């Protein structure tokens, strides 16, 4: 397994504030990294519920609360705490810190189409549709 994975230097520790998360795109994946004070944890960046950005959630212990509908994801394991979840867990990535830089271990092959039922795949489609209508009806 580890042959297909690589440690990637992501960013300086200080760029992720205490008890907050930041999202980062690595090899076609959106990953959310969190600073828990004594370590950094990383999981898939999108909530399996409606694709909410987990990096923007409130951290409570080792759990992040999705900002959209308050679904909870355990950061160490990626386990989703809601029984209604379509998947039992999302991907969690190993992390370490080296010379003040946070590293994440990611698979080498790019992510296959992530099965996110939420709006993340085509975030602005409904809005585009409305916009085109407005343009059509605009007077000369």
């Amino acid at each position, binding site marked *: 397994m580890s042959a297909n994975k*690589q440690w*990637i*230097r*992501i*960013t300086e520790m*200080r*760029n*992720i*504030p*205490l*008890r*907050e998360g*930041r*999202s*980062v*795109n*690595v*090899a076609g994946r959106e990953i959310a990294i969190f600073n828990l004070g004594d370590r950094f944890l990383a999981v898939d960046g999108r909530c399996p519920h*409606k*694709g*909410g*950005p987990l990096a*923007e*959630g*409130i*951290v*409570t*212990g080792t759990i992040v*609360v999705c*900002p*959209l509908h*308050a679904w909870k994801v355990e950061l160490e394991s990626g386990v989703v705490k809601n029984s209604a979840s379509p998947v039992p867990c999302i991907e969690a990535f190993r992390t370490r810190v080296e010379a003040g*830089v946070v590293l994440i271990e*990611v698979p*080498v092959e790019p992510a296959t189409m992530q099965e996110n039922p*939420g*709006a*993340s795949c085509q*975030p*602005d489609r409904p*809005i*585009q549709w*409305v*916009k085109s209508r407005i343009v059509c009806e605009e007077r000369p």
Partner: protein
Amino acid sequence: MMRARSTEFFLGGALTMQKLVVVGNGMAGVACVEQILKHAPRFEITIFGEETHVNYNRILLSSVLAGEKAADEIQLNGLEWYQKHGIDLRLGVRITDVDAEHKTVTGDDGSITPFDKLLIATGSTPLIPPMDGVRKEGVFVFRNLDDTRALLDHAAPGKKAVVIGGGLLGLEAARGLQVQGCDVTVVHLMDTLMERQLDFTGGGYLKAKMECLGVKVLMERNTTAILGNGKAEGMAFKDGSSVEADFVVIAAGIRPNVELGRKAGLQVHRGVVVNDYMETSNPDIFAVGECVEHNGTCYGLVAPLFEQGKVLAATITGNRGPVYGGTIQAAKLKIMGVDVFSAGDFSEKAPGTDAVRYEDPALGIYKKLTVRDGKLAGVILVGDTSDSHRYVDWLRSQTDLTAMRRQLLFPGPGNDAGLDVAEMADSKVVCGCNGVTKGAIIQAVHEKGINTLAQLKDCTRASTGCGSCTEVCQHLLKAVAPEFQEETKKSLCKCIPFPEDKLREILRSQRLRSVQEVLEIYGNGVGCEVCKPALSYMVDMLWCGDHDEDRSARFINDRVHANIQKDGTFSVVPRIRGGVTSAKELRRIADVAEKYNVPMVKITGSQRIDLLGVKKADLPGIWADLGMPSGQAYTKGVRMVKTCVGTDFCRFGVQDSTSAGIEMERRFENLYMPHKLKMGAVGCPRNCAEATVKDIGLVGQEGSWQVVVGGAAGKKVRKADLLVTVETTEEALQAATLFFQYYRENANFLERTYDFVERLGIEKVRRETVYAPLAVQQGLRERYRRSKRLSEDAWLEGDTPRHPTQFVQIEPLEKVQA
């Protein structure tokens, strides 16, 4: 009972009635008198009380110290009770002597009072361990209401308080002082806190919890002297060490008050010796409570007083029969968030004793049961006392536990409290302090129509003692009372078990300025998405600008000052005060929308313009290009004032609602609120800008303004209540300001004004704002002004971010090598 009494008077009984003199107006004496009154009106009663207060609940003094209860809330028997029963109450009189032969007592006021029967209920006094300097100023005991008041006068934020004694009383005193803002250290002689109630392990858990609350604990320290020149400045210990102190509280135990017993020639050991009928060695003199010794034991807790009182009442009224067989000692620590319960004999040394244990250091839970000959002998619960009632029951009934050995610590599923209550026999005592049975509670519910716990307390006294049966009482009410209403005071959340008004008070008195600090001292140290934003609001409201703004405790909207949308983009709503804009401003908005490719531009329901679908990284640029302040459309804060065109253009307008609305928005903007706050100002009662369904509305009339509050047109539709009618615009704005700040300070987080006003009632709101004493109004205005002065437009953070990556997308330092 009153009827029976007057009959006896009528029959000429008054002259032949015996005189009963009670020395001591505390819980034991008065509870015993209450029982005596139940038998028959045989006595003409005089009660002497050394304190100048009517009978109060001494156990709750620590709650008074902690500010959880006011002094008058712990009163048990008001003056009218004494009057109603024809009791001659003499307060402030200390009985100094007894003449057993001539049957008189002498008071320190020189009075000599004859008796036929004497009841000694003198209680106990604090034990002062031998040490130097106890007479110094700033050395206190903690025994009665006056001591409590003195401590409250002395306690102040930052003062160093040292409490000698790590027992029940000492710990409760320590916590009370700490809530008052003191820096508290507990000094304990033994190696375990509450060693009479807890074993070494349990004491360790308790110590950790106390330290977690911020109370320092020094173990195995023998105090030799209180240091200081005339007043307490520190303490010296036998091991040579010392601590500093601004004041010292001695709570090292109690000593039964037996002097009167001695003077009366009674048999006295540690306490006045009584037999199973509660008789002393003199047939006309009785004793009850902490001053007595029964079967070699002196009790310092409340439940035995009531049990003794019942027996004594029977004996003294000539119904000698019931016997007192001792009480199983049960104690509960009354510190919010620190659950400790202990009962019976927890020692494992006696032969045939098994100890059954459960502990989880991470959760801070420790439970131990001692089982002897198949029966429960003792119990210790730390961190979770929810099962205490079951264990007390097993102790009292001496239930054979052989068949239940697997479920001792974990009752099987379905065996919840509700069922427990149903299975309980009617004769079972629910409130051990006041001896109230399940049957008595059910009877009271049916006969008196009781629906709340407060009513139940009033009517039956159940749950007014130590309070450990509150939960069972509530389950009973839920099961039996047709319209049971739960108490509305709920804790904020599981992470921090305090109601919000309490928390605001704690934050204020303790000067806590950061969310994490509050969670660490009063909560579980972690917090969640419910309590963190609520606490963020509280520290901001109390110390606005002068607090430690912790963005990790804020919802994402308040981290980046924009409203998160379903796809993770944000919406931007600039402030357009009163809905009045200009061609220039509109042009700028249009330019911004084009430059940043904003997917949707929309007019909102609040006379504003919304730019939707903005990327986080674009926010600072957009704000700078707009050159307009934040409209706070993303937060629990001041949203907007919707206005009509008022007198400027409208044919009907009688007040300049546009200017008034703009001014109101200017005065309130940038402040955080318990929930969003929407306002309106209309120039005439036609109400075109719908001010009567806003949180605060100004409704113009000919020559006056109506200020209305608590309106809503959202999830709920509610017409606002009239707060006040005033003549000038400035007066209207002042009235609105009073309500504005009052709501900020008193509403729970996420409580809209319509719920807030409904909960308090508009009369109370008026009384505490526009009709409040001038000083109160000035206080509200001053605190509003202070917050306003320290607040600022959140979008200024676009230029000077709080954190380098607040709005910046992080790019990895390297790429994946294929």
